[in-house]
C-alpha cells in the first residue's frame, strides 16, 4: 500500500516536470500594434517554417487568441517545446472612428471595433493559463501606460514569470532605457521583430525564465 502511494506520488511529480518542460505555454501580451504577432511570427517561422497570424499597420489586427502548438526552440544546444499563444492587444478604449484613418470602411470599422473589444476580454481570460508571458512594448512609445502596469501587476499576482520586450529598436525614436526605467524590477530586452535583430538575447532570457516554470 505504502509502496503504491509512493509510486503514484513520484510518478505524478515526474509527469508534471515532464509535462511542463515539454509544452511551456508562452503568451505574448501588450498594447495594440506593439509587434506581438510580428515577434511570434518570427519565432514560429524560424522554428516551424509557418507563421502564427497576420500583421498590419491597422491597430487590433489580431482580434482573437492565436496558437501554435509544439514549437521546438533550439538555443545553444538545448531544446524546449512551447505552445505559442499570441493575444489581441489590450486597450481601455476602442473607437471605430480610429480605424477610418486607415481607410477602413465604416461598416468594417464598426465590425473590427466590436471584435477588438471581444479580443481584449479574451486576452484577459487567458492570463491565468500562461506559464511565461512576454510583454511586447513599442520602444518608440511612452511605457508609463496604465494598461502595461495593470497587465504586469496581474502577472506578478499570479506568479507568472515576465519578460519585457522593447520592440522596434530599428526605429530612431526607440528608447530602451526609458522602458528599463519604467520597469526596473524586470529584464528588458530590446529587439526588432521586423528585422530579427537581437533575438539571441530574447531566446537566452526565455530559456532562463523557463527554469522558473
Amino acid at each position, binding site marked *: 500500500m505504502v509502496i503504491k502511494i509512493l509510486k503514484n506520488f513520484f510518478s505524478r511529480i515526474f509527469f508534471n516536470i515532464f509535462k511542463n518542460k515539454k509544452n511551456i505555454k508562452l503568451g505574448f501580451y501588450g498594447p495594440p500594434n506593439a509587434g506581438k504577432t510580428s515577434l511570434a511570427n518570427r519565432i514560429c517561422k524560424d522554428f516551424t517554417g509557418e507563421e502564427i497570424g497576420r500583421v498590419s499597420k491597422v491597430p487590433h489586427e489580431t482580434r482573437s487568441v492565436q496558437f501554435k502548438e509544439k514549437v521546438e526552440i533550439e538555443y545553444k544546444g538545448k531544446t524546449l517545446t512551447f505552445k505559442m499563444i499570441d493575444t489581441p492587444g489590450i486597450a481601455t478604449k476602442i473607437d471605430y*472612428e480610429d480605424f*477610418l484613418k486607415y481607410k477602413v470602411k465604416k461598416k468594417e470599422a464598426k465590425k473590427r471595433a466590436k471584435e477588438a473589444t471581444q479580443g*481584449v476580454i479574451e486576452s*484577459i481570460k487567458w492570463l491565468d493559463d500562461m506559464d511565461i508571458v512576454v510583454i511586447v512594448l513599442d520602444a518608440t512609445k511612452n511605457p508609463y501606460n496604465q494598461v502595461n502596469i495593470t497587465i504586469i501587476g*496581474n502577472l506578478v499576482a499570479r506568479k507568472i514569470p515576465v519578460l519585457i520586450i522593447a520592440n522596434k529598436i530599428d526605429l530612431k525614436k526607440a528608447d530602451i532605457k526609458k522602458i528599463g526605467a519604467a520597469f526596473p524590477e524586470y529584464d528588458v530586452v530590446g529587439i526588432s521583430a521586423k528585422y530579427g535583430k537581437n533575438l539571441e538575447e530574447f531566446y537566452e532570457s526565455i530559456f532562463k525564465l523557463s527554469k522558473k516554470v
Partner: protein
Amino acid sequence: MVAKKKKKDLGKIRGFAIQFLPNSEIRDLGSSERIRKILGIVLGNNILILQGRLLVDEEIRLIEDTMAMIGHVKNFRGIELAVISGNGQEGFFSKMKKGLANALSGGDLGAITIIGPATIVKEIKHNPKKIELLLNK
C-alpha cells in the same frame, strides 16, 4: 468627411464634471460594486479622481467590463485610466513601511487614480514626474 463626422459626434457632449471620490466611499464595497460605482460615475460624463487605487485584479476587471460595455452603451468608447503612486525607487525598508501602512489603512491611500470617459479624455500622458490630461475639443 471623417473629421466632420467626428466633430458632430463630439458635439453631443454637453459638458463634464470632475468628481473626487474619497477612498472611504469604496473601502467597504466588494470588487463588483466598486467597479459598478466607478463606471456609473464615468458614464455620467465625469472625470473621476479616486483617492487610492484599485487592486490589480480589479483594474483588469475594470478593463474587461469597459470592453463589454462598448457597443452596448450609446456613445461609449471606453475609458482613459492612470494611477499615480510614489516614485517606484524606494528602498526595501521604505517599501516594507509603506506595505504595512497600506495594510492598516486598507489600501494605497497615497495613490491617486484618474479615470475618464474616452469621449472626453483624449489621452492621459503619464511619466514618473507628471501627469497630463488631454481633453477632446
